[in-house]
């Protein structure tokens, strides 16, 4: 081949490869399954202290209905957490206090604190501690991809999560459906046998400015939880979210006791 024709061939090859390279630079490769969990955790985490109101409506299969309002306080840097029930009247003042690895349940009627290991069925509902806590999917689970699902033209990435050894989680196996922006759309909690325990549909998110990191973070707005065995359904609404420093002594028994009269 002459130098001229060689140059022409190289130019032609270069020109042919250009569109492909441009496309590759436009579309970054999809993150791995574990990376998706990290992205989700990051979007849902705050550097600031958190204060919010959770309002829940639960309807059991037998028609019994329950409405509960509770205040949630979090300091994720120390893993401290408070749920304080404000409504209904017969439960008001009760709640949970987590300090480090201790989870305390407070019965306001007799002023008794009880160390508990119960991470599920918070305040007598099908909700569990993790529903109100910092998202720690990447710390607690190993994720693998399953075949994506397409509904009405929208592709949802489907992940299978298995709890890491030693992690304390409500569901040893979980499936997540995430949208293109890595928002969880649906999550299904399974028993180790594979039996479905609870299905959650995330109906809405709210964006909040984190004053400490300066980032715009995501927080659930409304979640529908469906328990499989008993058929109980629970709508959880997260409202009045404030990301701001909390009082230094808030995560104490004395503070919770002092909130009631």
């Amino acid at each position, binding site marked *: 081949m002459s130098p001229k024709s060689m140059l022409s061939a190289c130019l032609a090859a270069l020109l042919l490869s250009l569109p492909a390279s441009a496309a590759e630079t436009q579309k970054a490769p999809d993150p791995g399954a574990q990376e998706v969990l990290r992205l989700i955790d990051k979007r849902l985490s705050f550097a600031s202290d958190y*204060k919010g109101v959770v309002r829940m*409506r639960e309807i059991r299969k037998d028609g*019994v*209905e*329950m*409405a509960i*309002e509770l*205040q949630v306080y979090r300091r994720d840097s120390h893993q401290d957490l408070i749920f304080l029930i404000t*409504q209904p*009247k*017969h*439960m*008001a*003042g*009760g709640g949970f206090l987590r*300090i*480090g*690895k*201790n989870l*305390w349940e407070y*019965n*306001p*009627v*007799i*002023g*008794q*604190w009880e*160390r508990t290991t*119960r991470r*599920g*069925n918070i*305040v*007598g509902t099908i909700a569990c501690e993790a529903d109100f806590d910092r998202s720690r999917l990447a710390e607690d689970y190993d994720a693998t991809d399953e075949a994506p699902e397409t509904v009405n033209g*929208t592709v949802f990435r489907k992940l299978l999560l298995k709890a890491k050894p030693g992690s304390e989680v409500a569901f040893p196996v979980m499936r997540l459906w995430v*949208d293109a922006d890595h*928002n969880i*759309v*649906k999550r299904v909690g399974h028993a180790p046998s594979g039996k*479905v325990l609870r299905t959650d*549909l995330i*109906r809405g*998110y*709210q*964006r*909040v400015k984190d004053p400490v990191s300066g980032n715009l973070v995501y927080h659930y*707005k*409304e979640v*529908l939880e*469906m328990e*499989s065995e008993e058929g109980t359904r*629970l*709508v959880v*609404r997260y409202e*009045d979210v*404030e990301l*701001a420093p909390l009082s230094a002594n808030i995560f104490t028994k*004395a503070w919770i*006791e002092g909130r*009631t*009269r």
Partner: protein
Amino acid sequence: MTLGLLALQSIRSRPRSWIVGLLAAGAAAVLTVGVALVASIHDGTRRTLIESGAGHLQVYDARSPESPLLVFGPNGPPTLEPFADYPAVEALVRGVEGVREVVPLEVNRATVFRGNYLDEMLAALRAVVREPPSPERDARLARRAEDLEATLRRVAREAARHADAFTVGAEHEEDRRALESVLAPGFQQRFLAEPLPTLELLENRVARQLGEGEAVELDLMGTELPRFARAFPRVEVVTGQLPPEGSRGLMLGHGAWEQNFKLPIAWRLDEVSRGLARGATLAGDEGLRTLVERNREDVPELVSRLEQEQATALRAALERVQGHPGALEALLEDFLTLDDATFAPRYAAFYQELAPHLPLYRVKPGDTLVLKGSVEPSPGVPVRVWGTYRFKGLGGDFSRVNITSLVDLVTLRHLTGRPTRAEREETRRLVASLGLAGASVDASPESLVLPTIEDAPAAPARQDTALTRAEGPPPTFTDEEVRSGSILHAAVVLAPDAPADAVAARIQELATAKGLSLKTVGWEEAGGFVGGVVGMAQVLLLAIAALISFFVLLVATGTLLLLARERVAEVGTLRAVGMHRREVFVVLLAEGLVLGFVGGAVGAGLGAALILGGAGGGIPVEDAALQLFLGGPVLVPRLEWAHAVAVVVGVVGVVAGAALLPAWRGSRVAPLVAMRQGGE
């Protein structure tokens, strides 16, 4: 007549035929005793169930997917639909002839949690700290601070020993250092100056080092307690008293109280005592020796639980009993080092001398327990313990019925998460006021819909306002509150001579006429697996009877066939002198009948003698579970003459069946052949 005499003569002259009679006697004797035992089990279980809450009948709403079960398994209580109109149901049932009492019921299970001993000690201190300031409160706080320091020093020593012996994690090491810093000189002064921060630190960093505590499960029967005690007169109050009419309250089964709330050291001593009473020895029984060893290991924990005054008094008592001075822990360990020779006097001394200075029961009549529903998660429901009770004569304290606790229906309703009318109304108001009316719970678990994303509105900084603390269910309730609430089933107690089946049919008839949705079940079905034991015993007896009959049939047929073959010549002679084949058949069959009847009668008589003579006064039963099925601590086999007659008739039938083939074959022999065989 002649044929009968011939048969008798033949039996008398052939002792080998008596084998058949002996077999019949053996079978009849075994079956007579067996039938009497099964009848006793049936009677005992019936008595236990009917008199411990099941009543003769249980009435429940016909829309229920399951029927009432008083003794339920690990899956929890049955699912029942509450009566739409309980007062109408009760009025209807009471109006039926033969009904003596109708008692509303509900069964369930609850859990009581307790922390470890340091959790309990710190909780007691917290309660003192909360009291309004007074010199008495300060003095009490100072005394308890002294006790706390002694306990913490013991915990610190244990933690240090543990850290020396094992590799501990960084977190554990941090907790240990936190404890050491708390115990720096001047602990009591610091604690008394600022008790709450120290308590928080101890609760979160130190108490958890001693474990999570424990959960105690209680089987509950919800009812109107005073009415229940009137309807079931075997209820015997052991300690405390029944709650007055209209008061919420818990009567612990005496067995449940002993098992779950007694000082573990005392409970283990009781266990050893019971073992020795059964004839075991400490030298020969490893299980009993383990109990003794565990008691010694528990000494530090027990000493930690004691208040200063108790510890001083206990030490003085131990010095008196042991006859020498010493440190409390050493004296107690020495006292609890037991063998067969020392157990009896030490056991007596424990209750006489030491128990008055010990917290013998964690929960006493008058205390409040927080119950938690274990089937439906619910916030704890505080309830006053009024006392303990047992069903007199229905098994030992640890039988199933005596470990069931009685509780009022209002408390049980709270535990199961069934809201009261006021709570339902409040929920309706809250759904509207909290803006949850539009929060739909309708969606398919299969659906996938993109969530909405919105910017959170800027929330104005909220002040945390004081909340009005929940008061819990009030300690009293009205009759209307109980009856208008959801009642799941009711026990129907009948007059002694009232036929349960007829009463059930009448209830059903009246309910249909009045349009009430009702169903009834008998005590056997309501008794769950306890009632099922009766059926199982009956099936077992039938199987044994079938096996025995088969054995008798085989052996008797073989023996009689052999005898028939030996008598071929005799049969030939009889036929030759003009006896018909039919008459030969009757003679041979009659032999079987006579052997069966005589053997059966003798055997039944023998069985009856064994029951009346050998076990007439009853057989003592030690095992509490067996006592439950036998209706008490003594098994009295119940002999009914009708049963004995049925056994004899059955045995005669089997032997007659066995005689059919030999009689038929014997009667078929031709006279000529028979005489030729006889000549050979």
